[in-house]
């Protein structure tokens, strides 16, 4: 359990560093450090599927964020109604903690799940599907509806990005669409 506390402390430190950095690229790299430590935490908790997915998605997000922030001078506004913003944020955190206190109390203790549904999967996954990776058997056979929803989410994300970034429909006179060549 000690290594989990070390990893959690590293994640919190990296997250605070990501907020406090002045430079935008340093901040993005600190966010990437949070994700990489999280993938190590998944590996320590013996979830290699999630660790692989977290690692590769984190690398992809890091590349996209760095390439998107590298040549733009994004406005960074730290002024304004900071008192109201801080008050709202603290209020939401307090409300969340109150609800979390009552709901987390009823959860089973860490590492000793009840396994009412999971016991069925562990027992019958190999017999019913023939897949030795039980995670694959669950997400693509028993719970394939959820995977269909995930695929739909990704499809919707691509369509949404295209709809936001594409401005062909309202192109003005003298405006050219150019691909950056690098």
């Amino acid at each position, binding site marked *: 359990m000690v290594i989990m506390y070390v990893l959690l402390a590293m994640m919190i430190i990296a997250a605070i560093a990501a907020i406090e950095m002045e430079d935008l690229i340093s901040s993005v790299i600190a966010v990437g450090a949070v994700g990489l430590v999280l993938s190590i935490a998944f590996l320590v908790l013996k979830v290699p599927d999630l660790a692989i997915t977290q690692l590769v998605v984190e690398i992809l997000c890091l590349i996209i964020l760095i390439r998107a922030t590298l040549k733009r001078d994004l406005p960074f506004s730290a002024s304004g109604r900071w008192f109201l913003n801080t008050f709202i944020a603290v209020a939401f955190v307090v409300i969340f903690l109150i609800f979390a206190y009552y709901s987390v109390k009823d959860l089973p203790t860490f590492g000793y799940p009840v396994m009412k549904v999971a016991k069925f999967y562990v027992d019958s996954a190999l017999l019913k599907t023939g897949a*030795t990776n039980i995670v694959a058997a669950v997400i693509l056979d028993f719970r*394939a509806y959820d995977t269909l929803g*995930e695929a739909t989410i990704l*499809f919707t994300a691509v369509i949404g990005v295209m709809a936001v970034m594409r401005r062909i429909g309202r192109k*003005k006179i*003298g405006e050219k669409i*150019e691909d*950056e*060549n*690098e």
Partner: protein
Amino acid sequence: MNKEPGMTLIVKTITRLTVGFILLYGIYILVHGHISPGGGFAGGVIIALSFIHLMLAFGKETALSKLSKPAAALFESFGAIAFLAIATLGFMGGYFFFNFFTDKGEPFKLFSAGIIPLCNIAISVKVAAGLFSIFIILVLLKFKTDDKKEDK
């Protein structure tokens, strides 16, 4: 800025050596998704990362000659429709997402587990093409205005 697109010679040489292995590792992860950790989503992201690696090192011409924008759109739609088609084929056995292979095959072999490898392949095609097209859209598309009134 020099005329040749992409990064320096060191990056190009290393990319030429490694990008094939990255693509191969992605295909390995996705094909063995029902045997070992991994699966369609992770394999698809690694395949998309190999194309993004090519684009970052060699510029957009090389990467888009390997997988063009219409081809990426086509592959993403094809992956979605293939996944839905596999799901609908389950009606042969009675219900949606039915694992309709009666012979599930021997465990720990590559050809086993019924529809799960097919679903993995469909999802990975969809994820690879979708994430690559998101990268193209977010990074490459720029809008230049000639009149200075607009970008104030």
